[in-house]
């Protein structure tokens, strides 16, 4: 029995147990559950991960390639450099022309259209973190660039931004921490036309989840690693071909592992959420997933793990800033045009101050995120700055999402306007860990 068959067997067993349950009839939930099961089964319910492509080491470099760190600027400056400005403008245009118009349907379908993903791929957003020697196009490593790209893309839609940026998180992790063998095996695929679907899976389904203490375990067994556990809200998890998964490694503590989706013991099931639906979030189940010793990324260093955590949080901050800006840009013309009691509602302080506060807090979120990213680029410590950016964004993004709906009143509550989606998406800031990387 191969992995796929085992996976099918498992999901059929689960279906069967549900179907036989008397409980469903008792609580009158059968119809709802059957609909849910149908949807699950369509997506494989619990399926073996896609067989995916096989990765094998191409021409291997003697040492791992790394992008050069950016030069530390001497002066205080909030102006992006020319390269960043152009990239951010190009992605901003793509976000406005392609992403925003596709967002409503993608949210409903729990999937981002392949065409959009292909176009995002053409823009090279998955290759920002790949060294030039390995086919990347950015000589310097830049978290600021990553932040600006995330911000611009999320102005179109946060869910689609997540779907499009997810493979780049894996490529970026390999670029930053992969050894020569790992880079040679996996990175060439990311610079080709057909970018592999890939995801960085840190989050787990647990209240007060602390990514420094993952429940997913990696046992050391005769030079191999055996992983067991569950990962939550993995973007495009069902179709992922390559994963980087966080687990508590025996004798090392939390660490990152490179996992090909064809590995036995790896299963996914759809896990649609409140928002980010265009990213087709999925749960990832690891049942004794056996990996070679070489699957360990960054030699299991805790510093690497923490850096990954903070870089991911910064990326989420960037998405929150982009979507927050979308809210502000949307509510301004609305409150200026909406008339009540004989004049635009924006003539009222209660409304106008809500808009002002969105503007003020959003600017604060942006500056904190930029500062942490710029510190990362110039090799300074940035754990404090990233934590503070995360804190502010977690609180204010949700508030901006809520105010966005509030300012439109009942109109904000219906899908005719995008603010209800942004309300759902912006709550992700502060919840999500991993999945993205700058």
């Amino acid at each position, binding site marked *: 029995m191969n992995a796929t068959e085992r996976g099918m067997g498992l999901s059929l067993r689960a279906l069967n147990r549900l179907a036989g349950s008397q409980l469903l009839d008792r609580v009158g939930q059968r119809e709802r559950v059957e609909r849910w099961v149908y949807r699950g089964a369509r997506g494989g319910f619990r399926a073996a991960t896609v067989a995916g492509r096989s990765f094998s080491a191409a021409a291997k470099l003697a040492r791992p390639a790394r992008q050069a760190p950016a030069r530390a600027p001497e002066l205080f400056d909030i102006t992006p450099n020319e390269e960043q400005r152009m990239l951010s403008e190009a992605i901003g245009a793509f976000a406005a022309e392609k992403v925003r118009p596709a967002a409503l349907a993608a949210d409903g379908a729990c999937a981002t259209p392949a065409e959009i993903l292909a176009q995002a791929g053409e823009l090279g957003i998955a290759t920002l973190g790949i060294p030039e020697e390995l086919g990347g196009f950015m000589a310097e490593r830049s978290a600021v660039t990553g932040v600006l790209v995330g911000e611009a893309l999320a102005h179109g839609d946060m869910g689609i931004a997540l779907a499009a940026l997810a493979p780049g998180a894996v490529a970026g992790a390999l670029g930053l921490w992969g050894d020569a063998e790992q880079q040679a095996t996996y990175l060439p695929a990311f610079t080709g036309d057909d970018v592999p679907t890939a995801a960085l899976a840190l989050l787990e389904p647990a209240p*007060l989840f602390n990514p420094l203490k993952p429940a997913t375990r990696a046992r050391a067994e005769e030079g191999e690693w055996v992983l067991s556990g569950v990962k939550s809200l993995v973007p495009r998890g069902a179709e992922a071909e390559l994963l980087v998964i966080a687990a508590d490694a025996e004798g090392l503590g939390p660490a990152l592992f490179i996992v090909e989706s064809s590995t036995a013991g790896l299963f996914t099931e759809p896990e649609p959420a409140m928002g980010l639906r265009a990213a087709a979030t999925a749960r990832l189940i690891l049942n004794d997933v056996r990996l070679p010793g070489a699957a360990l990324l960054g030699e299991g260093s805790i510093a690497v793990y923490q850096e990954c955590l903070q870089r991911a949080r910064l990326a989420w901050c960037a998405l929150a800033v982009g979507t927050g800006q979308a809210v502000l840009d949307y509510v301004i013309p609305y409150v200026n045009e909406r008339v009540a009691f004989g004049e635009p509602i924006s003539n009222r302080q209660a409304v106008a101050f809500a*808009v002002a506060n969105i503007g003020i807090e959003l*600017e604060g979120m942006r500056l904190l995120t930029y500062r942490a990213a*710029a510190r990362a680029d110039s090799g300074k410590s940035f754990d404090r700055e990233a934590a503070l950016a995360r804190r502010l964004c977690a609180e204010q993004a949700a508030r901006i999402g809520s105010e966005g709906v509030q300012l439109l009143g009942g109109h904000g509550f219906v899908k005719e306007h995008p603010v209800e989606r942004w309300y759902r998406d912006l709550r992700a800031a502060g919840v999500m860990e991993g999945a993205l990387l700058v």
Partner: protein
Amino acid sequence: MISLEIPKKFKPLVSQAHQVASEVLRPISRKYDLAEHEYPKELDLLASLIDGVNEGSGLGGAGAAGVRREDNGSGDGANRNGSNLSTVLSVMELCWGDVGLVLTMPRQGLGNSAIASVASEEQLTRFDGRWAAMAITEPEAGSDSAAIRTTAVLDGDEYVLNGEKIYVTSGERAELVVVWATLDRSKGRAAIRSFVVERSNPGLKLDRLEHKLGIRASDTAAFRLEDCRVPAEDMLGSAQIDVKQGFGGAMQTFDNTRPLVAGMAVGLTRACLEETRAQLEQAGVQEDHAAPALTQHAAAARMQAMEADYEAARLLTLQAAWMADNGRPNSLHASMAKAKAGRTCVEVALGCVELCGSLGYSENGLLEKWARDAKILDIFEGTQQIQLLIVARQLLGKSSADLR
């Protein structure tokens, strides 16, 4: 190239200001909080010292000369870190020491800011080195400064001022008072001008000094102007009333001083956070930047949230100053900074008192004083509500007639 770090060239200035704050201001902080209305004579020596090193160094108080616009923007598009940024950095450090004392620093009054911002070259030379207070508020006109009733009537080559002014910071101690008055009440804000009045002018009568919640080291005066005759050449700006120009010069002052007041709030906020962090560490509570806030001690999570607001206020303030240095219009960002910094310093100061319990609340420490000092920073140079109005009008593209 994005970088939000303090540039190396300002590090000596910041360290100098910090030493002044910790060696001169902090030790006398409580003394002049208790001895309200007593002149802090220690500041004379300090002011001379600052005058000595101030030649463009930016070390100074609220009214440091570094808010003038002419030298901004070299036009070559190159990034500049100039006197606006250095001044705001210096103010942050000094106010980490004591806001009240900084407000009463000789020759560093808000009136000096007004002079620096709108005076002619000739006036600038004439008033150079003199301490100037600022008199805008009246009993019936606070935030609504267009409604001021103090009148200025030209009589020969002098203006005759009549009216009442309150809340004049350093009004008793300064050598000059910049008085806002209207040339013609029927023309609204366009007719408002500021006049530099000698403190010794017999028509400028000191009514009383206020007893206040905080910043007690700084004197707050109330004046009556009774046929106060001021030479015409001591009026700032043009005598022509241009209705289209509105407040013009007078309001420009605020674009320059708001980042400074925001900087004061940022300095005070940092003082509160540092003190509270030290006390919490003694109590065994330590923040962890890697772990999620919600998995930490509630006090650590609260500290992190307050620090995030502090950092937002600080960066917004630096941004507003940086924009001024680079000749970019910054009235939106100056008000954003003032709004965020003002409310943050009050919330943080009161929050820190709560976290430290009786140690925070008693006069044995300075936290209770900082919490009292904080409140004024969300009020003067434009209240929280006025800042929100300015930000909202700019974002929404509204006039002050639409959004009142």
